[in-house]
């Protein structure tokens, strides 16, 4: 016997003890696919034969089965299953997870079973037990179909039959993962034949009419059309559309899923009593003139359509009205109903149309879902889903989505063929961009809370600990800017290894050595400005902010800090800053060059005192003042004592040194402060051109970034934008390094913070994975602000040299990978929740405890 078993499905082995179930299961299924009741007895009691734990054992079994079904795995239940009551919970489970069920029945002679049991040392059944089980089995046989096993019931009554049985696994009809496209997915047609032909031509399909009148469609190289259904009703040329689509499916040029109108038409064609509303009458009257044979073909075609398809390795799902993640690739009445109608509340609105549940709103599945069914003015990406029914028959347009390109191609309707029941198009037209973001507007707490594992392209899976998300939730909710703006957060940066050069903690040579050891020869140094990190997103116009970011209001963009807070409390300053950056972009012609209407820049904003005012007043200035006065008074007092010939010289020397150190400290922080009254007092130094529409620039090296940004700075009409000095260093060449070191010394001697050393390439993987994208090398005087005024005193410096960088570096890599991931997801137009989880992750990692002086 050949047993066809759908994959996935829930398989129940049914038969008395000793009927050969376990042996059969071992032969035909993977050990992990088999859930045996005996094994579960063992799990809970250490004894596989202990009948007293049956209840607990089955609870365990069902629990595991539920997990496997949720994961979409084929699962075989190896238990006697002879009573309907025993099968019932398993069948319920299958229904819950929209699984097909298979019954494999071992209707073996009682005697054989008894003999086998007697041969097993651990089985001690009274003979009546087997007899009873067999009776129960026989009573069950007739009802199996009705119980829900439908077409998958296999009964074996001899050992030979069991011996010769062979299991054939069949993928479900919905599973067409091997089809990898590329595809052109086409929205609801509703008999709009002319527009369909135009659209196909636009998409590059060759269309020719044979002498027989048959239309032949030739797809462009390797492509395939996918129709989301609703071919019929309402429109003018229903038979033509059906003929074309059926032909395409036959030649393999198209894949079709059915729409609710198509299904209704079949029922009408089959003579069922169907109300001829919603355009069905038009279809029927057009079909009236066609030959009966054609009508039979239509019915067969439409009847044969599968509810939905999972394509391209599970990356794409096409269904008429969409498909929830947990229903994708499953089979049940509910799945089919969902595919046809979507999810409704069961209520109707004032136009008599069903109120729909926004399944897309809550969609968090990995697959992209393309669907139609509800006409919209513009296709809208919502959480990886898109509705491409643009209401052609209502006078809108016919739209196709090119996959994987994600390009939309449309042709306008020649006329309004059918008046819509409700003025949907108008309503949508009114506020198209707001509508676009409406579903994406609200994030779900489950997108961010608890322990998180985020998969990134650069650095595998990154785990965020629960205690960190607790902190981040508060910061994000109370202080961060609108999450829609928050498409990136900068990573933390580790310093160079600690140097042994006298008087210093950090030195460029250590940075060069680090990268040389990683096998990198060319690095770039860039001046590290002492300001505050700022991420700037600038749009070409407020319309872009609305359309692309979903931010409503008359705004050109945003400027936020490294923790996602708005940089300026004063909105006027931000507006003017953004205006000036936009002006520079205008002048540099970057909108055109990068074919974009928004740009995201990574910058340093000076002076430090703008953002650090509180810190300066609460901490830096008080330390300076108190130290200066306290040490000054001590020196005076010691000098007076010295005049009395008391030997205070060692203390006095020490205090004089400390006084000098403190004076240097005050000078150090003062350099980074100046009064800010307007934008004219600010300096913005961009150093990464992070992203524009459709592109991130992590594949460009830092020289490119510097060139692009220098040009941008030069295009500015004001003094706001500030080019960063930099230089390329060959870390295998002594002279080249010496020159860079000389420049660093010069820069820091003049009060500069220091430099950042980066590999020339933005992203570099070494033998052991991702390499630090940058290390900072801070100057001696600057570090007084970090390590305290007197850190340079020999007794202090020695102790400070032992510092561990590994935590900081691990954190830097994880944050870097998450930042890149966030931007890449945003640029790929992934849902807000997917971008937000990365940014939230960075914020959460920032609450990891790491030495803040690094």
């Amino acid at each position, binding site marked *: 016997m050949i047993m066809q078993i759908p994959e996935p499905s829930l398989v129940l082995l049914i038969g008395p003890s000793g009927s050969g179930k376990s042996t059969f299961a071992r032969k035909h299924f993977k050990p992990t696919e088999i859930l045996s009741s005996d094994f579960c007895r063992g799990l809970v009691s250490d004894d596989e034969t202990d009948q007293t734990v049956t209840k607990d054992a089955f609870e365990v079994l069902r629990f595991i089965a539920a997990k496997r079904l949720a994961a979409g795995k084929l699962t075989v239940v190896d238990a006697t299953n002879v009573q309907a009551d025993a099968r019932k919970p398993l069948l319920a489970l299958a229904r819950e997870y929209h699984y097909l069920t298979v019954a494999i029945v071992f209707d073996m002679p009682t005697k054989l079973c008894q003999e086998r049991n007697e041969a097993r040392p651990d089985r001690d059944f009274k003979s009546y037990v087997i007899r009873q089980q067999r009776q129960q089995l026989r009573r069950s046989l007739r009802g199996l179909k009705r119980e829900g096993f439908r077409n998958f019931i296999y009964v074996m009554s001899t050992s030979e039959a069991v011996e010769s049985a062979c299991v054939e696994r069949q993928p479900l009809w919905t599973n067409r993962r091997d089809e990898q496209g590329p595809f052109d997915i086409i929205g609801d047609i509703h008999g709009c034949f002319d527009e369909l032909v135009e659209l196909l031509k636009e998409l590059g399909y060759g269309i020719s009419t044979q002498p027989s009148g048959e239309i032949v469609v030739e797809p462009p190289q390797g492509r395939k059309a996918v129709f989301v259904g609703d071919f019929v009703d309402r429109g003018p040329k229903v038979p033509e559309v059906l003929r074309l689509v059926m032909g395409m499916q036959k030649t393999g040029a198209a894949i079709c899923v059915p729409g609710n109108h198509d299904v209704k038409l079949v029922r009408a064609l089959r003579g069922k009593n169907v109300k001829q509303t919603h355009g069905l009458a038009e279809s029927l009257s057009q079909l009236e003139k066609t030959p009966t044979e054609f009508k039979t073909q239509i019915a067969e075609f439409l009847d044969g359509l599968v509810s939905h398809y999972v394509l391209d390795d599970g990356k794409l799902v096409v269904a008429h009205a969409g498909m929830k993640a947990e229903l994708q690739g499953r089979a049940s009445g509910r799945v089919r109903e969902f595919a046809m109608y979507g999810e409704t509340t069961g209520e109707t609105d004032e136009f008599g149309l069903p109120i729909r549940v926004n399944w897309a709103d809550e969609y968090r599945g990995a697959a992209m879902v393309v669907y139609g069914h509800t006409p919209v003015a513009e296709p809208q990406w919502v959480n990886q889903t898109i509705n491409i029914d643009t209401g052609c028959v209502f006078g809108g347009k016919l739209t196709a989505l090119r996959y994987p390109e994600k390009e939309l191609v449309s042709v306008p309707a020649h006329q309004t063929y059918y008046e819509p029941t409700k003025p949907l198009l108008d309503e949508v037209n009114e506020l198209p961009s707001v509508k676009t973001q409406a579903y994406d507007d*609200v994030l779900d707490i*489950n997108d961010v809370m608890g322990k998180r594992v985020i998969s990134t392209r650069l650095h595998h899976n990154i785990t965020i600990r629960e205690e960190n998300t607790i902190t981040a939730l508060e910061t994000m909710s109370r202080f961060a800017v609108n999450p829609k703006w928050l498409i990136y957060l900068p990573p933390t940066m580790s310093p160079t290894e600690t140097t042994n050069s006298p008087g210093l903690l950090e030195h460029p040579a250590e940075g060069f050595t680090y990268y040389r050891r990683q096998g990198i020869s060319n690095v770039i140094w860039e001046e590290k400005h002492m300001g505050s990190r700022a991420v700037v997103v600038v749009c070409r116009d407020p319309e872009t902010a609305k359309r692309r970011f979903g931010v409503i209001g008359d705004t050109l963009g945003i400027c936020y800090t490294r923790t996602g807070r708005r940089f300026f409390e004063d909105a006027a300053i931000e507006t003017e800053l953004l205006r000036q950056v936009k002006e520079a972009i205008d002048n540099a012609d970057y909108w055109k060059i990068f074919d974009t209407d928004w740009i995201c820049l990574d910058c340093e904003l000076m002076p430090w005192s703008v953002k650090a005012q509180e810190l300066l007043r609460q901490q830096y200035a008080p330390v300076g003042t*108190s130290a200066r006065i*306290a040490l000054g008074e001590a020196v005076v*007092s*010691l000098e*007076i004592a010295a005049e009395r010939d008391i030997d205070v010289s060692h203390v006095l020397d020490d205090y004089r040194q400390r006084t000098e150190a403190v004076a240097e400290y005050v000078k150090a922080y003062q350099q980074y402060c100046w009064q800010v009254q307007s934008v004219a007092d600010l300096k913005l130094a961009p150093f990464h051109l992070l992203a524009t529409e459709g592109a991130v620039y992590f594949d460009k090296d830092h020289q490119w970034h510097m060139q692009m940004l220098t040009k941008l700075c030069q295009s500015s009409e004001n003094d706001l934008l500030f080019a960063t000095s930099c230089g390329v260093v060959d870390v295998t060449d002594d002279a080249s390094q010496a020159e860079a070191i000389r420049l660093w010394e010069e820069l820091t001697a003049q009060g500069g913070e220091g430099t950042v050393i980066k590999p020339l390439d933005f992203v570099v993987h070494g033998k052991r994975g991702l390499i630090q994208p940058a290390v900072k090398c801070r100057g001696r005087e600057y570090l007084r602000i970090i390590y305290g005024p007197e850190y340079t005193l020999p007794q*202090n410096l020695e102790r400070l040299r032992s510092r561990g960088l590994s935590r900081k570096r691990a954190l830097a890599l994880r944050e870097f990978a998450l930042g890149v991931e966030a931007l890449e997801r945003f640029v790929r137009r992934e849902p807000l929740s997917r971008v937000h989880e990365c940014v939230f992750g960075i914020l959460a990692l920032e609450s990891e405890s790491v030495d803040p002086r690094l």
Partner: protein
Amino acid sequence: MLLTISTTYPPATDLGYLLHKHPSRIQSFKLAFGQAHVYYPEAHAERCTAALLLDVDSVGLTRRPHGQFSENFALAQYVSDRPYVASSFLSVAIARVFSSALSGKCKEHPDLAETAIPLRAKLSILPCRGGEELLRRLFEPLGYIVEAERHALDAQFSDWGESRYFTVTLENTCRLSELLTHLYILMPVLDDEKHYWVDDAEIEKLSRRGNDWLAAHPEQESIVRRYLKHQQGLTRKALAQLREEDVQQTDEPIQQEAEAQVEERMGLNDVRLAAVTEVLKQCGAKRVLDLGCGEGKLLRRLLAEDQFEEIVGMDVSHRALKIARERLRHDRLPEKQKKRLRLFQGSLGYRDKRLVGYDAAVVVEVIEHLDLPRLSAFERVLFESACPRTVLLTTPNIEYNVKFENLQAGRFRHKDHRFEWTRDEFQSWATSISNRFGYTVMFHSIGPEHEDVGSPTQMAVFVREGREGKIT
């Protein structure tokens, strides 16, 4: 940090005996947190000055075993004023270096130790939280002539204003031990900080060193409170000891949240919570959400009402929830009460399934803490996703702000308020919400109503329009 002590009591050099330190040498002492030097910048019969110079080793202080960092690990520890100012470190140094003088003992001249002599102490830098006023209020009742010079934060940036540091001289005719004791206690009080953990031992110190003068000091209460790092339990106990009272075991009074400071004169918070509770009772709600429950004041009121069968408190601040849990003694509640109350962290910016299916939600003084652009997410989270039958929402009425004497014109009532609305603004917002999400709305005033400016708090009560039957 330098402390100098001078006297003109002849022969002034006897100060050396009192301090038990020889005037012609410098002596150094090792301390747990650094070292102290004692020397005499001047020493003759007419006038003698002893100097205590304290070195606090800032690097040593903050070093921990490798890889261990505390919870509140911040840069502040490293760039710190502690090595330079008079603080509890100096108190400890006085106790160590001048221990006999502090306790009023002097082997060579016991009578001198018992004599009130003219003394002058100078502290090079003394941080005073509370300013010169407090400095005077602390020392002048003890007979000191106080001279104080306040220092600017940064000479180059005059707009940054004054620092909290003073160079202070104190003159008095008293016993040396008195002077040292006063400094020992009052320096950390002015600094309002201590470098070590404060517990019962600290009360003992306070009563030992302060017994004879603290009981009559007009600032007794603030001295004790600050000395015990504002720990209420300890403070009560210490004050009771000083006043020789019995310690009353009272309920921990709920600390006024900073928010309420402006409003507290009229007890507005209580009025508001009472009003909210009343409306909530009237609407017949049994299962209720307190969104933004903070430290749990409203929850406590709701728990007292049997009508509420299930009470959920949500707040974005994990810390606030922890306090709420402690204040409500959540884990000590009887099982039945405990089951009625659930507390969890959540944010009104995120849709949350846990909030679905309640009779009512109260959102008391919360929305003004949200940035205006993020209000739209809040609206959908509450009215579309959670959609309780009733929503009670309160927020300040900005028109009323002119009535607060202690509020500067043009300021919001709290630093964290992102906006405050007029009655018109609030009502038009609430009305648009109710239209959009299918609610009806009514407005209430909370607090004393004023003819022109209305009441201090405004409340909207939203009720979902009758679709109950259909919503599951």
